[in-house]
């Protein structure tokens, strides 16, 4: 049994180390998030293995919390990663507290352009509405593309 535990620990540690290497090396922030997800899953697995090894269920609530909240980090960073690439966006402070438009049908439509250079070029110049752009009807008319 001890031998099996050592084998499992080695395998899990190997996975964790490789994920850490990708976190350090990862060229983009998205690579790092993906690797962080892997690291989190390895941690969950280690805790579960420890619980199985010692027959002690104390740590199981931790697993429940991790599995519920683990994905929020990835989702929020993915959102901000998109937003940072769209410089025509309004200041993100106001934009961030507009979650209700996630439920609109248009919010999962395809964008006009994909890829970074194209996104920079082809984004239509916005009308100079910065001054009153915070009035409700104006904000609703805008394409909800940035919010996801």
């Amino acid at each position: 049994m001890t031998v099996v535990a050592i084998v499992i620990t080695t395998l899990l540690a190997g996975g964790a180390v490789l994920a850490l290497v990708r976190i350090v090396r990862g060229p983009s922030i998205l690579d790092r998030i993906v690797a962080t997800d892997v690291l989190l899953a390895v941690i969950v697995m280690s805790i579960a293995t420890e619980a199985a090894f010692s027959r002690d269920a104390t740590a199981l609530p931790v697993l429940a919390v991790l599995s519920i909240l683990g994905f929020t980090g990835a989702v929020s960073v993915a959102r901000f990663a998109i937003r940072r690439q769209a410089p025509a966006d309004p200041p993100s402070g106001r934009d961030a507290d507009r979650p209700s438009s996630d439920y609109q049908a248009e919010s999962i439509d395809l964008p006009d352009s994909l890829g970074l250079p194209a996104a920079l070029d082809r984004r239509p110049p916005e009308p100079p509405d910065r001054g009153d752009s915070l009035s409700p009807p104006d904000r609703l008319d805008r394409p909800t593309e940035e919010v996801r």
Partner: protein
Amino acid sequence: MSGVLDVIAWFLLVVGALLSLSAGVALIRFPDLLSRMHAATKPQVLGLLLVLIGCALRLRDAVDITTLLLVAVFSMATAPVAAHMIGRAAYRAGQARADLLVVDELADADDKR
């Protein structure tokens, strides 16, 4: 009986750990972000399920098994959400290497608009 259950549990735990190691290897080895995500998000799910089943076989207590069941359901429900968000962001950011794509119908659809 309990010995047999223990053996099955250890086997499942070892396979789960092996899957997590392979996810790590794929994370290092695959060429672009979208391919890495395949390895990173999926063998993980199966590995996690196997480890949880192994854990349940060792604990054999109704309270703990319900908690483990919840963990499994939550992670299976949330993993695709995270994967979808990251995949979409990755494609937008041009992280999909075009030289590795045999077919790219998303780019075609985009051009037609």
